């Protein structure tokens, strides 16, 4: 193996990333060649320096703060669910009833309008029917 090729592979050799055949060739070359052995040793020193790269640390309660943040976000996203579910379903149904003009069934309300003439029920159904057809 030539020095130029070996030199290119020394980094991957150091990282145990070569297949066994190439790894053996590089190891053999490093054993024979002073220059390449020097490269290998320098790369090892560089690794040691990289491990000593100054590190920063987050606040000890970072995880807890983030947990609270996530909980708050979840609460905002699903805020409507804080109302008990059966009550929410009832309110939803009631709103839909009041807004009945949106639904196609509102177009044939006459059959349900058996209230006495000019009673509140009669007027309500009449209005609904008119707006549904309009």
């Amino acid at each position, binding site marked *: 193996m030539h020095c130029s090729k070996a030199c290119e592979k020394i980094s991957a050799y150091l990282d145990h990333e070569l297949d066994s055949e190439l790894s053996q060739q590089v190891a053999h070359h490093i054993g024979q060649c002073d220059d390449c052995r020097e490269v290998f040793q320098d790369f090892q020193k*560089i690794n040691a320096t990289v491990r000593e790269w100054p590190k920063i640390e987050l606040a000890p309660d970072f995880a807890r703060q983030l947990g609270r943040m996530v909980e708050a976000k979840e609460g905002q996203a699903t805020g409507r669910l804080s109302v008990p579910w059966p009550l929410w379903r009832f309110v939803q149904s009631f709103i839909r009833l009041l807004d009945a003009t949106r639904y196609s069934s509102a177009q044939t309300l006459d059959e349900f309008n058996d209230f006495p003439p000019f009673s509140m029920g009669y007027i309500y159904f009449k209005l609904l029917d008119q707006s549904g057809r309009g």
Partner: protein
Amino acid sequence: MVVIKRQSPAAPGGNESASMEDIDFNTIKAIGRGDRSAFELFVKKYQNPVVNFIFRYVRDRFTAQDLTQEVFLKVFQGAGEFEPRGKVSNWVFTIAFNLCANELKRQKRRGYPYPDLSLGDPAELECPAHDQAGTRKKELEEDLMAALDRLPENQRAALWLRVNEDLSYLEISQVLNISLAGVESLIFRARKQLRQLMRGRNGSSP
């Protein structure tokens, strides 16, 4: 041509590593179900590797802290749809890397407030005082640290992930979204540049 075949230097640790991955998968599943305590445990486990990886990439402490927070919020949001195609840690580092890359693009568009730290002539980094061997060694270490910070972002990220997080080239290629040959080249060039600096310093010593 790059010949890559990971040879595990610590075979007995293989099972341990696998079980750690299982724990991570289970934790992610729990987070996906909205388990806050699982989320906090997960954050505690990965907060320092993630913040330091980001810090090495963006070189700004406060940006690193903000991005770390963002990484874990994305983990929480994405945990429900997480598919175990690789290690959980790789997924987390991928999120971190993507956020870092976006942040740097944003900073560059705005005029890049960080100083230009491209690696220059090693001689420029030399200090006049080389009287004692101890001082020289310390200075060399400091210069190497400075030179590490001056490496291009991708080289720094690849070298950090390899040396400090013990990721394989394959895993790094997934995190950085580049080829295996690209990873090998990045790490080799990073070491070569640092070595040039080291040799320049040693050569200039009396």
